[in-house]
């Protein structure tokens, strides 16, 4: 065993460490660069008028109010449908059954659903809601399509939140003579709420940023939505059209900044809740 042989692995280690450090820096810098560019060009565009006026002249003038309203409506419908389905599924999987073929099939289904590209959801929503059910390009079609898209996220986070509730809670409740359903509604769910909320917030973030599934189901009409059946343009679709057709770069940056800031705030809140309520307990 000469000294050189012993040194070589250490030199190798040093070289590799520097290389890894570089690669990590590249990855992080690229991602941060995107954020900085959007905020640097977008923030100067933001003012009260931009947030409270409707777009005019195809988006060249005015603000983005109607697109904000459309985004909120669409997201609201998506969650209204997906939350009960997702939480119900999670309750069934964790409290009402043991691992079996059915649970495996349900989990596999949710996982597959999570992997389906948004454009496929868009195609599906277009054919089922817009065409067959005759909802047309509307808030309703878009919201229902998004509901299906975020369903797996809500199932997964609710399941984790419910699993994180200590088994002792349930045992105490059963020993007091409660039924399973009483235990679930009065003991398990109240303790799991923060975790479930996390999943819901995460889904809000996804709904806000989605473009491909929304453009074919909610349409891209640039006006204030008045009912469930009005076609309307969300923020991300508006941003896509402004940027792709080169309508107005300043307005595009402004819209992107609103999008990115709202999603970052949402994700930071989620991250905080996750750390606090899900990861620590499990």
């Amino acid at each position, binding site marked *: 065993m000469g000294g050189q042989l012993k040194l070589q*692995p*250490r030199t*190798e*280690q040093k070289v590799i*460490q520097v290389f*890894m*450090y570089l*690669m*990590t820096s*590249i*990855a*992080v810098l*690229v*991602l941060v660069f*995107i954020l900085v*560019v959007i905020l640097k060009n977008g923030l100067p565009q933001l003012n009260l008028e931009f947030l409270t006026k409707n777009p005019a002249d195809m988006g060249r003038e005015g603000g983005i109010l109607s697109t904000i309203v459309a985004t909120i409506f669409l997201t609201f419908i998506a969650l209204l449908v997906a939350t*009960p*389905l997702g939480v*119900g*599924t999670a309750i*069934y999987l964790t409290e*009402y059954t043991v691992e079996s073929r059915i649970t495996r*099939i*349900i989990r*596999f289904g949710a*996982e*597959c659903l999570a*992997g*389906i*590209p*948004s*454009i*496929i*959801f*868009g*195609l*599906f929503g277009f*054919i*089922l809601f817009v065409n067959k059910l005759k909802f047309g390009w509307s808030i309703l079609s878009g919201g229902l399509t998004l509901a299906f898209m975020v*369903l797996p996220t809500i*199932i997964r986070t609710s399941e984790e939140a419910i699993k994180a509730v200590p088994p002792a809670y349930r045992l105490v409740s059963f020993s007091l003579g409660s*039924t*399973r*359903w009483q235990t679930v509604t009065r003991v398990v769910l109240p303790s799991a709420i923060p975790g479930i909320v996390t999943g819901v917030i995460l889904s809000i973030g*996804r709904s*806000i940023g*989605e473009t*491909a599934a929304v453009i*074919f189901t909610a349409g891209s009409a640039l006006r204030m939505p008045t009912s469930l059946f009005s076609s309307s343009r969300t923020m*991300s679709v508006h*941003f*896509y059209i402004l*940027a792709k057709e080169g309508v107005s770069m300043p307005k595009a940056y402004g819209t*992107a900044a609103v*999008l*990115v800031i709202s999603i*970052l705030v949402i*994700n*930071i809140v989620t*991250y905080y809740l996750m750390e606090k309520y899900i990861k620590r307990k499990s």
Partner: protein
Amino acid sequence: MTRLEKNDRLVRLGLLMIALSAISVLAIITLFIFEQGTPIMFRYGFKSFLLGQDWYPSEKSFGLLPMIVGSLMVTFGALIIGVPLGLASAIFLTEFSHRRLTRILKPVIELLAGIPSVVYGFIGLMFLVPFIRDNFGGPGLSVLAASLILGIMILPTVISIAIDSIRAVPDSYREGSIALGATRWQTVRMVVLPAARSGIIAGIILGMGRAIGETMAVIMVAGNAADIPGSILAPVRTLTSNIALEMAYASEEHREALFATGVILFIIIMILNTIANVTSTRQRKK
């Protein structure tokens, strides 16, 4: 008591119905996409769809080969860029960096996973496309631009899943290796990575699924010409962009052909999902 027990049985049944919603949504989506997309494939023959090189919907020529090749090229390109960067970052953050740095960087990377794909596409259009055009030639809108953007977009997925599976390797493995005189890198290469392998592979496959399924970002930087690209500087059209670009005005057979594009995309994604599912379950069982 019996009344309560009876209610409980009803609740169980109701919850089972709800729990089947995810799988039924999957079934309905599959049904509708196939119902809309397969008849035209039977009419014109699978071969003309999968191997036809000409996409002229107005002349009833629906060859999808350029888009299939395009999707595979940009996905492969995304993996060449995203996997080394992502793996190196994951290894660095779990095995080499200070714990405090990891505690800051991991959330930052995960937060960035939430940035909408249109934003990535926009950045690509504003910075990457002109850069490629000025420095390498060609239109800038190219396989290269799409691969780079997709490579960056799959980073958060690859990094966070790789970190999780590297962390799942028991510390006793590392201690044993270090006690035998191995350096940290030797430990990582010969002990940790092999043990975390299936989780890492599952992460890469999920990233691959993300890259193949991505639409808006790709449309903005790929140029979208329906020809098999001759070089990485040539424009390219993927399966996803083919659907998104023409759906707005397509009708009748043209629309059916777009659904057929969706069918092919769907099949590719389901195969990838199943592989990812099988590999990650295998690790869990170990």
